[in-house]
């Protein structure tokens, strides 16, 4: 049994690399999209605010699995052909983006209005106000929930296995298909996911402590 699992380790490692790669792509892309849309939600004109609100509430209201199937099966039907890998990344990114929008809204909303008004009074432009006054203060509030959300991205990436992408989850199922050693392999997989996510949540706890001097 151990021999078979040892034999499969390089294959599992490849799957694990895909898991990390998917998670990284999703985290980075959703950060960029989410911050931009979040700024649109807080500062944009009414139509933009409504559009972002509807986007965020819709995405957060449906199961991530439905979103993945919708993107994967739905896009080719309307003539958009994406590789399954990118369809999965797109779906997970949409999901995460909606969360980042809410983190940003919460973080920026926690900055007293007087800060923006003071910045306006000394003649800073909108961009300067964001870059020098609002974002540096909001950053500390944004960071802990966002890092916590990174573990969700890693866990969510396991769903790409359902599209036949050989991430860690899919690699495990394939090895089980050949060796019939279901329990040891699922436990091994659980331990790997646990190690990554637990390390991430420890990091977020440490960051939270570091910024715990902020009081309102």
């Amino acid at each position, binding site marked *: 049994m151990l021999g078979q699992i040892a034999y499969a380790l390089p294959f599992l490692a490849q799957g694990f690399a895909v898991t990390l790669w998917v998670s990284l792509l999703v985290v980075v892309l959703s950060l960029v999209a989410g911050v931009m849309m979040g700024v649109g939600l807080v500062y944009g004109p009414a139509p933009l605010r409504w559009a972002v609100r509807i986007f965020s509430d819709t995405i957060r209201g449906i199961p991530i699995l439905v979103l993945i199937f919708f993107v994967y099966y739905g896009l080719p039907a309307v003539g958009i052909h994406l590789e399954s890998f990118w369809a999965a990344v797109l779906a997970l990114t949409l999901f995460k983006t909606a969360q980042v929008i809410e983190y940003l809204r919460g973080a920026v909303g926690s900055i007293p209005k007087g800060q923006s008004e003071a910045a306006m009074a000394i003649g800073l432009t909108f961009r300067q106000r964001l870059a020098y006054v609002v974002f540096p203060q909001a950053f500390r509030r944004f960071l802990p929930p966002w890092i916590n959300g990174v573990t969700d991205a890693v*866990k969510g990436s396991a769903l790409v296995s359902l599209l036949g992408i050989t991430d860690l*989850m899919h690699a495990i199922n394939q090895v089980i298909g050949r060796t019939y050693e279901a329990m040891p392999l699922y436990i091994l997989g659980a331990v790997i996911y646990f190690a990554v996510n*637990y390390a991430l*949540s420890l990091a977020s706890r440490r960051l939270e402590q570091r910024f715990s001097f902020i009081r309102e």
Partner: protein
Amino acid sequence: MGYTLNFNLIWRNFDKLWGGLLLSLELAVISIAIGIAIGLLLAVWYVSAGRVVRAGIAAYVEFIRNVPLILLVYLVFYGLPTVVDIAYSAQISFIATLSLYSGAYLVEVFRSGLEAVPRGQIDAGKAIGLTPWQRLVHVRLPTMLRITLPALSNTFISLFKDTSIASVISVPELTYGAQWINFNTFRIVEVYLVVTAMYLFTGYALLYALRLVERRFRAAH
């Protein structure tokens, strides 16, 4: 873009979606009920227990929270029966998994709720001569439940969405119904539009109803 929407095949197979939605709700309700029992028990045990028990409960909570739900679902359905001599249907297996899953989240919710009960209430209970058990049942738990109600409703709604994972072990809930129609009729865009609307409508209706309940309980005190 040569795609024309045609919902006829969706309505003809709507029983698959409707039955799926009801099953999703059923799975969520049963799982949160068991999850609440697990969460309450472990939270009460945690706050009064020694170091070893605390470490054990913390290990359970951290393990569940840091492993993907889909892996837990596979582990319980395909893995467990290979090492212990038990047999269960996919549905029962999923309910067990989701209960353990929600239980882990609820231990945390209830534990912080118990800690948030004002000291003065417990002292007042002592002062009128209640035993520790009476203080727990009549003072700490009711206050704790009122404090944790919003977190409980959020957990329930996210569990309702998590029931979609049951489709991977062929439990015929809503997402499974969607896939069935997807593969058998190829009205792909239509079926996911309808299912998205069903999840959204149900989720927000639940949210609204639960907020009403929360308001009532807050108003009473």
